[in-house]
C-alpha cells in the first residue's frame, strides 16, 4: 500500500526563531504524494507553503528556521535524518525545486547554458562538453533554441527565464519536482504556456510533482490530489474529486466561493472576511475560528485533530471530529 508513496510527510513542524518571537510557519503537517501523481498545495500568502517546500529540500534558512518535529519520507527514507552531504546529493538529482520568481532565481552573471550544465555536472559523471551538449538538449526540450545557451538572464523575458528554471529542475530527471507558485510572477498568457509545458514534460518524464499555488483552477487542471493549508496546518486534503465535490472545511468552502465559477452562476464573489492570523501569534483553539462562519464554542478552545472521512479525505475541523476531545477538556 505505502510502496507507491513517493513522498510522505508526517507531523512536520517548522518554526522560525526570530527576535520578535517564534513564527510557527508549519505545524504538524501531513502530506503524501504517490509516484507519478501531482499534488496541489493551496493556501494564502503566509500559510507556510514555501516553508514546507524548503523543508523537503532541506533548505530552510537556519538561522532563523528549524524543523522542530516530524518525518519526511522520500522513497521510504527519512530525509530529515540524512547528513548534509547525503541531502546535497539528493537535491537537484532526485528532488528539484522551481522557485516562485524567475526574475531573481537565475544567477545574473552566469550564462544560461552554464547554469543548466552546473546541475548536470554535479550529479552525472559527464565531461564539460557532454554536459553542455545535454544542457542544450534540455534547453530545446523547454522550447528555447540551443543557440541561446551563451546568453545571460538579462537577455531573457520572464517567461523564458521560467523555462530555463524548469530546464534546470528537469535536467537530471528527478523523481519529484516541487514547483512553488511557478507562474505567479508571470503574465497571464505566459502562465498558461508555462503550465502547459510543465504538464506536458511531466507526462513525458513520469515525474511526480508538488505544485504550490493559490489558484484552484490550476489545481483542477493538473492535480490528482490537493491539500489546503491554513496558518501552517493542512486543514483539508484528499483526492481532487472529493475536495471539489464534497468540500468539508469551512475554509475550503470559503476558497471555492471566493472563486469566479463557470458552472454555477454566482451573483457575487464572496471573499473570506478577515485576515490570516500572524503565525507568530496564533489564536487559541482552531486558528481559523475568528473567520469561521460555523464557529462553535469548542473551536475557540481546542485545536481540532485530523479526521479521516474515508478514501484518503482528511479534514481538520470540529464539525466533523468526534467531540470526545471536548470531554477531555472538562
Amino acid at each position, binding site marked *: 500500500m505505502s510502496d507507491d508513496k513517493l513522498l510522505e510527510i508526517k507531523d512536520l513542524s517548522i518554526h522560525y526563531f526570530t527576535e520578535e518571537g517564534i513564527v510557527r510557519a508549519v505545524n504538524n503537517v501531513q502530506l503524501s504524494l504517490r509516484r507519478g501523481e501531482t499534488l496541489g498545495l493551496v493556501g494564502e500568502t503566509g500559510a507556510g507553503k514555501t516553508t514546507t517546500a524548503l523543508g523537503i529540500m532541506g533548505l530552510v534558512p537556519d538561522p532563523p528556521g528549524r524543523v522542530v518535529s516530524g518525518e519526511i519520507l522520500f522513497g521510504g527514507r527519512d530525509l530529515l535524518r540524512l547528513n548534509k552531504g547525503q541531502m*546535497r546529493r539528493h537535491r537537484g538529482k532526485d528532488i528539484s525545486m522551481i522557485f516562485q520568481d524567475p526574475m*531573481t532565481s537565475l544567477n545574473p552573471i552566469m550564462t544560461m547554458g552554464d547554469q543548466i550544465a552546473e546541475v548536470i555536472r554535479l550529479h552525472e559523471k559527464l565531461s564539460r562538453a557532454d554536459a553542455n551538449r545535454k544542457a542544450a538538449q534540455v534547453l530545446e526540450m523547454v522550447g528555447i533554441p540551443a543557440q541561446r545557451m551563451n546568453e*545571460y538572464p538579462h537577455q531573457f523575458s520572464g517567461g523564458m527565464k521560467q523555462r530555463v528554471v524548469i530546464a534546470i529542475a528537469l535536467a537530471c530527471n528527478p523523481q519529484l519536482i516541487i514547483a512553488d507558485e511557478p507562474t505567479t510572477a508571470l503574465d497571464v498568457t505566459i502562465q498558461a504556456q508555462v503550465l502547459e509545458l510543465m504538464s506536458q514534460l511531466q507526462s513525458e518524464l513520469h515525474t511526480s510533482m508538488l505544485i504550490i499555488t493559490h489558484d484552484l483552477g490550476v489545481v483542477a487542471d493538473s492535480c490528482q490530489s490537493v491539500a489546503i493549508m491554513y496558518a501552517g496546518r493542512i486543514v483539508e486534503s484528499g483526492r481532487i474529486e472529493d475536495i471539489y465535490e464534497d468540500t468539508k472545511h469551512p475554509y475550503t468552502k470559503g476558497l471555492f466561493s471566493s472563486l469566479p465559477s463557470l458552472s454555477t452562476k454566482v451573483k457575487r464573489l464572496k471573499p473570506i472576511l478577515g485576515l490570516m492570523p500572524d503565525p507568530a501569534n496564533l489564536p487559541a483553539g482552531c486558528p481559523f475560528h475568528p473567520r469561521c462562519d460555523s464557529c462553535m464554542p469548542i473551536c475557540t478552545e481546542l485545536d481540532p485533530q485530523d479526521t479521516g472521512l474515508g478514501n484518503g479525505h482528511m479534514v481538520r475541523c470540529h464539525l466533523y471530529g468526534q467531540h470526545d476531545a471536548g470531554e477531555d477538556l472538562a
Partner: protein
Amino acid sequence: MLRYIAKRLLTMIPVLIGISFIIFVLMYFTPGDPAEMLLGDLATPEQVDALREELGLNDGFFQRYFNYMKGLLKGDLGKSYVSKMPVWDEIATRLPVTARVAFLVAIFAVLIGIPIGILSAVRQYSFIDSITRVFALLGITMPSFWLALLLVLLFSVQLGWLPPSGLYGPIYYIMPILSISAVSIATITRTARSSMLEVIRQDYVRTARAKGQYERVVLFRHALLNAMIPILTIIGIQFAGGLGGAVVNEQVFAIPGLGKLMVDAIKARNYPLIQGSVLVLAVLQSVVNLVVDILYAFVDPRIRSQYSRKVGKKAPKLAVAAAAASDEAAATTLEGGDI
C-alpha cells in the same frame, strides 16, 4: 571595449587640465617665497630677487600659467627648484617605492579583508561577526599614523624585533604595511560583509543550493562573484588612496617615497615638484578607476553589454551607473552596513 577604454583615456585630458589649473592657483596664492627659502636667512634682497627672476617668479599670474602649461603640453613638468633635476626624474625614482608599498598593502588587505568579510556575513550575528565588526570599526576610526607609532613603540622600542624606519629590505616593509593596511582591511571587510549579506539572501543563491551545489561553490562562485562590484570599487578607492595618502606614513617610517617627496616639496615651496606630483597622482587615480571599471565588465555581463553597445550614446549613462556604484560603496563604507 577598446573604444570604451580609448574614450575614457580621452576624457582624462580635461580632468587633468582642470586639476593642473587648480593646483597652480593654490600654489600661486600660497604664502611663502621659494627663493627666500632656497637662499636662507643670510641672503640679500638682491640675491633673492635675482633668483626670483631666474625661476620666473616675477612674472604675472597669466604669464606664469602660460609658461607652465606650455611645458605641460610638451610633456615637461619642469625642474625642481632645489635639486635642479627634472621633476619627472625625481618622481620616477620615488614613485616605485610608494607604488610597491601601496600594492603590497592592497594585496594584504584583500587577502585578509575579503575572507573575513565573507565569514562574518555567513555567520551573521555570531561571535566571530561581532568581533569582526568591532575590529573593523577600530580599524576605520584609528588614525594610521597613531597605529604606526604604537607599532614602532612595541616592535622596535620594546621588543627590538623590527627596524623603526627606512626601507632597506623585506623586514622593513612589515610595519608600514601593517599600519597602512589597517584602514583598508577594515573597509574591505565591511564592504565584503555587507555586500555578501545582501547577495546570500538572493533567490539565485538558493537556486544554486537547490541544485545540490557544494556550499563552498555556492559561496564563492554564486555569491561572492555577484557581491564583487562594490568590493572592487572599494579596493580601487583604497589602492588609489594608498598611493596618494602615503604622505603621513612615509614621514613616520622615513620611507623615501612620493609622499615624503611631496611633503619636502611643500615645505620648500618647490612649485614644479608639487604640481608634477599631484598631476602624476591624478593620472594614477584615473587609471585605477578605469581598471576598476574594466574589471566590472569582466564580472558582470550586464555592464559588459553596456560597454560594447554604442559607446558614444551610452557613455553618460554609464558614468552615472559607475558613479552610483561607487557612491553606494562609499555609503556602505561610511555607514558600515549596520555596525
